[in-house]
Structures are given as C-alpha cells and as structure tokens.
C-alpha cells in the first residue's frame, strides 16, 4: 500500500471515558467485524481485561476507510502503563484524545496528552458521550482545546455509544493525521512495539514497518539482541490474524517468528533482513526502570519452577516486568519483582494466580532506594557477611532486607503527582498529601468546578493505599497520575521483625522514622496473635538496627497431650498426630519457630492497609 494512504493512530483516554467503545464503533463502521461477530470491547481479549474494564496489552487492528488503510494501535489507560502507552505511540503518527464530556479533563488525560506531544503526534481532541444528559460538550471542548493548544471548534463531538459523529472521526484521521514517511526502497527496518507468545507458533512480534518491506520465509535479524530467525508468516489483525504477502513501509502488522524462547526477542528491538541488513537500528525505547518492588513466593515451595516459568511467560508480553531470584529464610525460594506501579503489581499477581494457577505470598511493596553506606567494612546482618564500600559509593537497594544497617544517606524516589479534584474536595486531598509527606507545588483551575493540584510525594507513600484514600476522601471523584521526579534524601530507617531472635527477612520494611514505632507495634501485635504457642517462649520484636522498639512474648505451651489412648483409639489418635505433622510441614521455619503461612499473610495484609 502506498504510504500516502496509510494512517497509524492510537486512542488515548482516561479510564472509562469510552476508548474501547469508540474502537468497537470504528470496527463496525468500517465493516471490519460484522454485527454477528461484534461483541463489546472486541480488542480486550484477555479475560482479566474484560473483567476489570481496562486494557493491559497494546494491540493493532487494520481497518479500511474511503480507500485508506487505518491502523488502530490500542493502548492501556492506567498510569502504571505509561510506558506501554509511549511504546504504542512510537508506532503512530497521530492520536485521538478522548474525554468524557460529562467528566471533563482528568489527570490521566493530561499525562497522556503530554506523552503524545512528546512523541510529536498529531492530536485529535474528542469529547465523547455527548448523548448523556449531563454531558457538557462545549465545556469539555474548551478544556481540551486549552490542554492541547487548539480551538474548541476543532474538537470532535461524538457519542461512541450511539455512533453519532464517529464517521467524522474517521474522516479527521484521514485528513489531519500525517501519513508515514519511511523509505520504501531502503533496507527493511521494523520496530517491535509489542509481542505475544502462542504455544503452537512461538513468539509473535507486533511491528511497525518503517522502511522497506518484509515477506514470509525470509531470514531476519533482530539488531539489538542479534537474534536470527526465519519469518513463518507476516500479516495483520482485522481483527483476527490475516496472513499477507508482505508488510510494507508505513504498515503495522505481525510477524510470526517461530522463536520458542521468549527471551530471544525484546520489545523495542529493530528487525531487518539478513539478506540486506540496515546499517542503523531505529531509536529504541528508553529502558523503563521499575519503581515498585515486592517479592513473590509460591505458597507451596514445590511450585517454584512453575512460578519461574510463569514469570518468563509474562515477561514476554510485559517487558516492564523485571524479576530476579530471591531466597528468604522464612519463605523459601521466590522472586523479587519490579513493577511500574501498584496496579501493575496486582495485575501480574492476578495473572500468575489465574492463568498459571499459582498460589502466592507477596511481600509488602517497597520502592527503590539509593543508599550511601558508610565507608569501610560493615557487617550485613541478614546475609551475615562483611561488605566493603568505598566512600561516596551509592548502591541501589530493591529489598528492605538488603538496606545497610548504617548509612551516610538514603535517597528515595519522588513523584510529581497531578491530582484533579472537585473544588470542595481540595481541603481533604491537601490534608492527605501533607500526611504522606507531600510538598505542595502549585494549583491550576482547568474549569470552574475542578482544581488541578500538583504535589511532590515520596513514591513510597503512594505505593500502599494512596489511591484508595484519595478516592474515599473525594467520593470517587479525584483523578490521579504521576511522573517520576527524581531521588531525594529521606529520613528513612529499616525496620526488622525478629521472631525467636531471628530476623524474618521477608518482613523487613524501610519507612520514615516517624512511622517506625506505630508500625513496629502493629506488626509485633499481629504476629503475637497469629503465631501459635510453641514448646518454648518465643519473643517477637521489631527493631531498628540493634534497638528494639516493640516486643511481645508468645508464652510456651504448658500442656499438649492426648488425654487418653487405649486399644480402640490407636488408629484415630495416630491419624490425628499424622495430620498435625502434616500441618507442621506446611509451616514456615524461622529459626526454631514454626510460623503458619497465615501469619505472614496477616502481616502482609496489615501492610496493605497502612493507616
């Protein structure tokens, strides 16, 4: 297809502002799906996406409109997936920015608009849901125009639900979004903007061809990784996979690589042909750094290999997920995983449990810390070896248990949070931000009813339940998004929990000094309730370094006997003891103390509901 007749675009929107409905309508109007095939949210194929009403994976669908080939590249809507949004946007020349006319511009709308502008995309602002009685199409149009620097009469007014105005959207895509501008005669280059794994066909790469042309049965080189493979098939989604003879410059589609190892092809790599390789790869993606970390342990330690395989599988479709093996004395073998944010963590966990049928223990989430240990040699208690550091050395710590006990300084990540809130909720939101060590930056008034608050907040303060708190204090009306704003020094301490004198590595936390006492007390109290009495006294302590700040003792059992046992009881009593033994085997061992899994779960849940 002549590039002049190709348009590549995304739809970006705040959650629930109608992105998926608009996509459905576009598929219908272009006869990409027949009415019979039509189901709501065609693009959201994963079970989890359907249930949560959010889109996790980017996907691309080709439609034709008035002689043009339009490629719709879907994007996720949530803040955690900014990275995936930007990946998808790099494959486009334009984006439709959707706003619910009854809600107006939201924090996410702002963040997504900035992303699109950073990527030099042509933005088509669109006010959706104009059929709703409470819709204010003109108000939304003027907010949108203000945001993207356009005039309100340029804003598309649409009801994706009824279909009103959707034809005009397609026309505007053709008229206003520029065609691709690659060189069809140059050596072939394509950007891998996503991938998925099919158990029969191996790794399927989603690509945007920039220059040249790709065929089936062609020898390919992935330039960054050096992986070589032969294409089994090329094609596009419409909306199911349709094989094609070629994928040409400017086009979006898929390449079936036949690769069986998910690690062999990374998203962001550039594909070229081995026969006539390009000399330079395309600019790849910035490597995103995960900001939130938690360790995942299988409840049943025998499931460790399954967890490893499952993470490997997820990583193929989710390059933003990182993980490395971690061994906990209490919880056994697991992985410390890095996530983009809390929702990302929750989705990964749910997919592991649902799609891979794993039962998991997840530690309290923490952020990345940059630590300057004291110069010289110091003993790391949880690993029991000496570590030597030169003066001024900075280490990044992703696991609270690895935080050096003494530090010159610790820096923690801060975010710049944009919070859009109805004007009568401003006081409560400001109070919440102050509670969470936030620093007020400034305030804007996008509309008479709503206020945009900009705060700098420690990321650690929002990884727990900040979003829930925000929603509950504003009856669900606040919107929230954030950008990473750099590392700043914090008054942070490492809080260790000791059971029977042994530190429970998986329960260590890094937190602000002012919170340590209350948290330590809560942890110790909960553990005392949850750990059954043993055959000896068990002290439970919370400590900062060698200083114990909270302590309880689980008194030894005084009596544990089978009252009687005669000829007729022997089998029953033996089975009772065997069951008790099986129960003991399921316990986790902290030194000599047996701790039921439920105790860890209870403490980890305590961490979920921080205040």
């Amino acid at each position, binding site marked *: 297809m002549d590039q002049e007749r190709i348009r590549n675009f995304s739809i970006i929107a705040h959650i629930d502002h109608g992105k998926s409905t608009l996509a459905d309508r576009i598929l219908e109007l272009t006869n990409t799906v027949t009415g019979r095939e039509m189901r709501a949210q065609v693009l959201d194929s994963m079970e989890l996406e359907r249930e949560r009403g959010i889109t996790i994976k980017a996907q691309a669908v080709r439609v034709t409109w008035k002689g043009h080939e339009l490629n719709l590249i879907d994007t996720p809507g949530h803040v955690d997936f900014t990275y995936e949004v930007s990946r998808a946007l790099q494959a486009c020349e334009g984006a439709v920015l959707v706003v619910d006319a009854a809600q107006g511009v939201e924090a996410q709308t702002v963040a997504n608009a900035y992303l699109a502008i950073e990527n030099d995309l042509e933005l088509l602002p669109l006010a959706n849901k104009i059929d709703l009685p409470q819709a204010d199409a003109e108000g939304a149009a003027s907010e949108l125009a203000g945001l993207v620097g356009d005039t309100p009469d340029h804003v598309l007014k649409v009801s994706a639900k009824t279909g009103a105005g959707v034809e005009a959207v397609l026309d505007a895509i053709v008229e206003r979004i520029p065609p691709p501008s690659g060189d069809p005669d140059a050596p072939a280059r394509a950007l891998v903007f996503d991938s998925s794994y099919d158990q029969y066909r191996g790794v399927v790469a989603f690509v945007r061809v920039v220059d040249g042309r790709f065929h089936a049965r062609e020898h390919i080189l992935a330039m960054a990784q050096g992986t070589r493979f032969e294409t089994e098939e090329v094609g596009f989604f419409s909306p199911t996979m349709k094989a094609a003879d070629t994928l040409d410059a400017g086009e979006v589609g898929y390449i079936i690589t036949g690769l069986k190892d998910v690690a062999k092809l990374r998203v962001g790599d550039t594909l070229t042909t081995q026969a006539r390789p390009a000399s330079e790869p395309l600019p790849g993606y910035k490597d995103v750094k995960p900001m939130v970390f938690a360790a995942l342990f299988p409840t049943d330690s025998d499931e460790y290999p399954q967890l490893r395989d499952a993470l490997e599988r997820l990583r193929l479709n989710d390059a933003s997920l990182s993980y490395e093996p971690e061994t906990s004395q209490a919880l056994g073998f697991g992985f410390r995983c890095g996530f983009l944010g809390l929702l990302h963590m929750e989705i990964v966990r749910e997919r592991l449990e649902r799609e891979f049928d794993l039962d998991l223990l997840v530690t309290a989430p923490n952020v990345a810390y940059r630590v300057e240990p004291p110069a010289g040699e110091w003993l790391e208690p949880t690993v029991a070896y000496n570590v030597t550091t030169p003066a001024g050395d900075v280490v990044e710590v992703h696991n609270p248990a690895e935080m050096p006990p003494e530090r010159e300084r610790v820096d923690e990540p801060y975010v710049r949070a944009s919070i859009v809130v109805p004007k009568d909720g401003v006081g409560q939101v400001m109070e919440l931000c102050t509670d969470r060590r936030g620093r007020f930056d400034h305030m804007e008034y996008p509309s008479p009813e709503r206020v945009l608050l900009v705060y700098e907040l420690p990321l650690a303060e929002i990884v727990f339940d900040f979003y829930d708190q925000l929603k509950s204090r504003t009856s669900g009306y606040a919107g929230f998004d954030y950008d990473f704003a750099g590392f700043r020094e914090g008054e942070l301490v490492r809080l260790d929990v000791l059971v029977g004198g042994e530190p429970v590595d998986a329960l260590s936390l890094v937190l602000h000094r002012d919170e340590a006492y209350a948290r330590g007390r809560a942890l110790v109290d909960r553990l005392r309730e949850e750990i059954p009495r043993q*055959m*000896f006294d068990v002290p439970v302590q919370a400590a900062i370094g060698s200083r114990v700040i909270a302590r309880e003792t689980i008194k030894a*059992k*005084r*009596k*544990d*006997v*089978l*009252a*009687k*046992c*005669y*000829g*007729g009881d*022997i*089998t029953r*009593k*033996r089975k009772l*003891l*065997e069951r*008790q*033994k099986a129960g*003991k085997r399921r316990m986790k061992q902290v030194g*000599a103390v047996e701790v039921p899994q439920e105790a860890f779960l209870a403490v980890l849940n305590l961490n979920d509901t921080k205040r």
Partner: protein
Amino acid sequence: MSGHVRHLYVHLPFCAHRCGYCDFVTVVGREGQHGRYVDALLAELELEHGLLAERLETVFLGGGTPTFTDGRELRRLLAALPSAAEVTVEANPETVTPALARLLRDAGVTRVSLGAQSFQPDLLRVLERRASPAVVRRAFYHLRDANFDNISLDLLHGIPGQSAAALAADIDEALALAPEHISYYELEAKQGTRFAHAHGAELVRQAEAMEGYFDLVVERLNAAGYRWYETANFCLAEADGRDLRAQHNLAYWLGRDYLGLGIGAVSTLGDQRRRNAPRLRAYLGSLAGREAPPREVEALDARTRAEERLMLGLRLDTGLPLSEARRSVDDDALGRVERLGLATLSADGNGRRTLVLTPRGRRLGGAVTVELLA
C-alpha cells in the same frame, strides 16, 4: 493348637443413659437383648479362640457400662471367659451394690475401674452422671468390702465450670479413698457432640485457666506417693512387689497384640488391625449364624507400627526403646527435643537406647511426638 495373643478385651455396650460427653460405642435400652448379646460374644470368642494363647495375662470388660448388664448374663459371661492374672471390669458407681461386688469377686474379677469422674454434685450434673458423690464413695466401700484390693478411680479434669479449687477438692476426695490406681483424663469435648454444643463456649473461655489443671493433678498425686506411669494414669508404688499399673492397658502402650470381642471392638493382630462394626443388630445376626461380624480391616505396615510405638511408648515413664520405633523417628528432631530439655536418651539395663520424656516433655507429650515423627 493355640495362638499368641495374651490380652482380651470384651465390649459390653449397654448403658442406662448416654452421658453427653461420651464417645464410646454404647446402647441405651434394649434390656431384653443382654442374653442374646452375651451369646453372640461367646460365639465370637469360639470363632477367634485359636488366636489366644494357652494362658492369658489380662482380660478387660469395658463399655458401655459392663455392670449395667443383667447380673445373670454378666455372671454367665465371666464364667465362660478364659481366666487371666488380671481381670478388670469397668463399673459405674450407681450400679455397684454389695451383691454386684460379690458377684464380680466370685466370678474371678481381680480389679475394678470405677467411673467416678468427680465428687462435685454440680459437675456431675454437667456430665449427666447419675451418681451423687455419696454414691461414688459408697460404691468404693462396697468393692473394698468384697475384698477388692486393686481398685482404680476414673476422674476428669477440665469439666465446664470446674474451678481450680473444685479440682483440688476432687483430688483430696480421691486420695481419701486410697485407690490403688487413678486415671485422670482431660475432658475432651468432641466436636459435633451435644456436649460440645452446650459447653463449648464455656470451655473456650476457661481454656487458659485450665491449662494448669494437668500440672495440678500430676503434682498432687505425685506428692501423695502415686507414680505417674502413663500420661493420664497413676498408681501406688507398692512395696510388696505388686505392680499396680493397669496391666491390660500397659499391653496397649507396649505395643502388644490384643483381641477385642463385641460391637465396635478393636483387635490388633500383627500387621492387621480390625474393628467390628458398631452395629448391634448386624453383630447379633452374624454370630447367631456362627459367622464373623462385619468388620473394617486396616493393614499396619512396619512404618505405621513404628509410629504407633513412638506415640504410645512416649506416654510411659519407662520411655521407648528406640530400636522399636527407629524408622519413625526424625534424628534432627531428636536432637532438638533433647536440647529443649523435653527428652533424654539413655541406655537401659540391657544397653538398649531408651527415649524418655522429662516431666516437662510429658506435659507436652503430644507436641513432642509430632515433632519426633519422621
């Protein structure tokens, strides 16, 4: 040709009333069937006779309430059973008349286990026991008058509403009677029984206070000269050489084979354990036709028997010769338990290594057993 089994248990299920906390196989009413039941027992004995050794060491009549059984039938049964050095009958106090005591003695019974449970009227009512404290004491005297010189009292601690003072009073009452043997059990409120339903909440409320009751029992009985020879059993250490431990029960705890007759009765015979179905009608029907009653059979492999040796042997103050339970004991756990001061490993007179629980270990015997299980 005679067999090897030297211990015989006979189950007499009949009771006047089923007490709320009871979980034994019992039959209430059906007084007209005592004769048929004894016929069936004797028929089963005849079927199994080949298993028994020429000379038995012990016979035990348990229930139910054996002494509630019609007197003539009880006498007929006792006369037909093989003789043994120890013949024990369980008795409920309200059934013990001077005539019954004489009947038992004349029939060769050597030992009576009297189900006293408590001497506190309010606690006896909670237990739905029919005897008053005076009746308990009187029953004891009737037995002494009939020349029984080996009487055991069954007592309970942990009764809903029982205070530490009430427990101490019970112990005093029991000691005043100077029985040769005392079994002191913790009341078990079995889930699902009407007793657990009625008193479960009270027991939970009292649980912490009652933790000390077991200690109180052990200390008081030890101080009074009773030997704490099994987790829940105490006997006078007699100077004249009589071993006053319950020889029949000791056979269970030492892992010996035994034959059980009657409904619900269990036998352990080498690598097999079998349990007669707890159904009276089926039992009577089968044996009327000279056929073995319906039974469940459980195969006991070497490992299972070793586990049972561990579970039972640790209950005794003489401990467990380790060679008998070797394959069921986790060596690491053995070290831990020794370090915690819960058990000691020593050589007995024959140089065999014997694992004995310390006094604290015996108070935690269940947990220690679980810890040691490989």
